[in-house]
């Protein structure tokens, strides 16, 4: 199935993202998918800056900037008020970074998911705290460099599996996406928008300065993340029904990793270790999808 990408633009020039910012592209596609009748709830993250300094805004939809760890709670409150006003048409979208989702905001996210509050939570994942200058988060990949995990002591722990955490909440809909597959991303947002209850979209968003990549490589790297099985595209309905959306064809993680300065300190052996972990995780996921 092919979906036309809607022509309408809700994100305008003058925004403050770096060239090649995956987070900016993710927002642009998301707004195209969801249309103008949305309220964006924005916890502290790079997007707090990208959206534009006072008194400007780079989005044509209303934005509520909120404290870092409050995405889940604020989304619930906005939705509750709309319901009290009889407004069933406006979609509430929480738009948070990986830090605001995997780490400091996990509690309020879990609260909203467990209550099955009716809004869409999008985590754009650039795999570190970029707003504050590339510190590690629990979404940072194994052995990656960040400013708090220097090359001689890179991240020792694997990336937290946020999708499994969300699936364990048995929410109606959770999906992964990337900007390299915009039709897939848009379809998933639209499916989320037509589903009642709590929806979670996890979108990988390359960050050129943070990942130490050339800005023009953001989309290529997003594609390689999927093709190398590092970031599988899949959906989980009701926490149980797993659907794989893309069947990768034999691309190794090496190809993904070599393009990125944040991995430049890795030895052959370490890359092999990452490959092993990726294969293991892929097989685990395939099993859940019945493959």
């Amino acid at each position, binding site marked *: 199935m092919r979906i036309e990408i809607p022509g309408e633009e809700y994100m305008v020039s003058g925004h403050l993202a770096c060239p090649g910012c995956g987070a900016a592209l993710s927002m642009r596609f998301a707004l195209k998918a969801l249309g103008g009748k949305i309220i964006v709830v924005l916890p502290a993250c790079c997007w707090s800056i990208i959206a534009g*300094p006072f008194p400007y805004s780079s989005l044509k939809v209303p934005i509520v900037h909120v404290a870092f760890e409050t995405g889940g709670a604020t989304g619930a*409150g906005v939705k509750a008020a709309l319901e009290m*006003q009889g407004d069933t048409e406006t979609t509430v979208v929480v738009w948070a970074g990986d830090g605001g989702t995997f780490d400091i905001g996990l509690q309020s996210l879990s609260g909203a998911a467990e209550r099955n509050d009716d809004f869409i939570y999008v985590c754009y994942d650039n795999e570190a705290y970029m707003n504050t200058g590339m510190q590690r988060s629990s979404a940072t990949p194994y052995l990656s460099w960040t400013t708090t995990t220097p090359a001689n002591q890179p991240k020792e722990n694997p990336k937290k599996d946020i999708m499994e955490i969300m699936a364990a909440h048995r929410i109606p809909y959770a999906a992964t996406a990337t900007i390299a597959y915009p039709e897939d991303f848009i379809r998933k947002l639209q499916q989320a928008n037509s589903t009642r209850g709590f929806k979670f979209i996890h979108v990988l968003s390359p960050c050129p300065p943070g990942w130490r990549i050339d800005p023009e490589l953001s989309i290529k790297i997003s594609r390689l993340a999927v093709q190398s099985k590092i970031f599988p595209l899949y959906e989980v309905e009701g926490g149980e029904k797993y659907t794989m959306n893309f069947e990768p064809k034999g691309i190794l993680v090496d190809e993904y990793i070599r393009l990125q300065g944040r991995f430049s300190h890795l030895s052959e052996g370490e890359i092999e270790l990452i490959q092993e972990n990726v294969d293991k995780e892929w097989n685990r996921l395939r099993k859940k999808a019945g493959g």
Partner: protein
Amino acid sequence: MKKVLTGNQAVAHGVLLSRAEVISAYPITPQTTIVENLAELCADGILEAKFLRVESEHSALASIIGASMVGARTFTATSSQGLALMHEMLHWAAGSRLPIVMANVNRALGAPWNIWNDQTDSLSQRDTGWIQLYCENNQEVLDTVIQAYMIAEEVYIPVMVVLDAFFLSHTSEPVEIPEGGEVDKFLPKYHARYKCDVNDPHSFNLMVSPEYYQEFRYKIQYAMEEAKKVAKRVDDLFAKSFGRGYGPIEGHLCDDAEVILVTTGTVTSTSRGTIARMRERGVKVGLLKIKMFRPFPREEVKEALRGAQKVAVIDRNISFGCGGIFGHEIKATLCDEEKRPQVFDFVTGLGGRDVTPSLITEIIEYTCQNERPEGEIIWAGMRG
């Protein structure tokens, strides 16, 4: 209609009569029965509101900040550790200029654990930009919740209604409950002047540079000063509609008093009796009750204390390394008066220790007998 209500039930009745639309709260002793009461009222459809059962106080306030942004009338309640956990969001609510109303049951903060009455929880939130109103009895609690919405919705500053742990929260008193229809006339449905609206998209709370930020703060301070006038007008209107008014302060037998006792919360009620008895003995003592702590009613306090030689402040709180918080507030207020009374600051009643009539008598006698206090703080009611 008169009913026997605990302070917490009075809060819930106030919220019911004010027709809050989104409520979010998290249980903590001694606030818990407020949450339970409101959850029940919503479940039974008596109060038509969304009740969000959040996973923390931080989320309680965060969620009603979201709801208030969209233009709903909102409510939350907490106490002590819960209020401390909310701290960041207290700033966020005030900075967002949202007319949120919250009840805080004054309880001691840990460590060590203590669930009893103490004002340090709310007073240590004094610089967050919330109006703070301290109540003396359960009638005042109910009336103040209703007034709080009217004040908040006019000046766009959130209001904290404060009541003493157990002495009010869990103590039953007869309370006159206003007729719903009358309250609706006094406090009509809330229509937000500014709100987050898809048909008129704006961006709220985005990054503000040094060129603008200071003016945002100036406007909050300006609104706080306005709030003094608004609160008086609301109280007068309330008195006209329901026959009860309170004022930001209440002076009692102050005119000819040589010593004036300054109190807040339930210590005020206890002091009323003590002062009556001391007056019978010929002691020229008066009482100043402070209801409004933020904005601080500076002019009214000066006026009330003008004739006195000495002022004895009872502080059920402490700012470590400094002193009692009301005491310091009073000293700062009096500093530019030509003829200043001597201020005695008594710290007592912490963590729920009783402030009894005999302790209050001792405090007044000490003030009468001494030219000046022995130090910045006089610790009263210490274990022998």
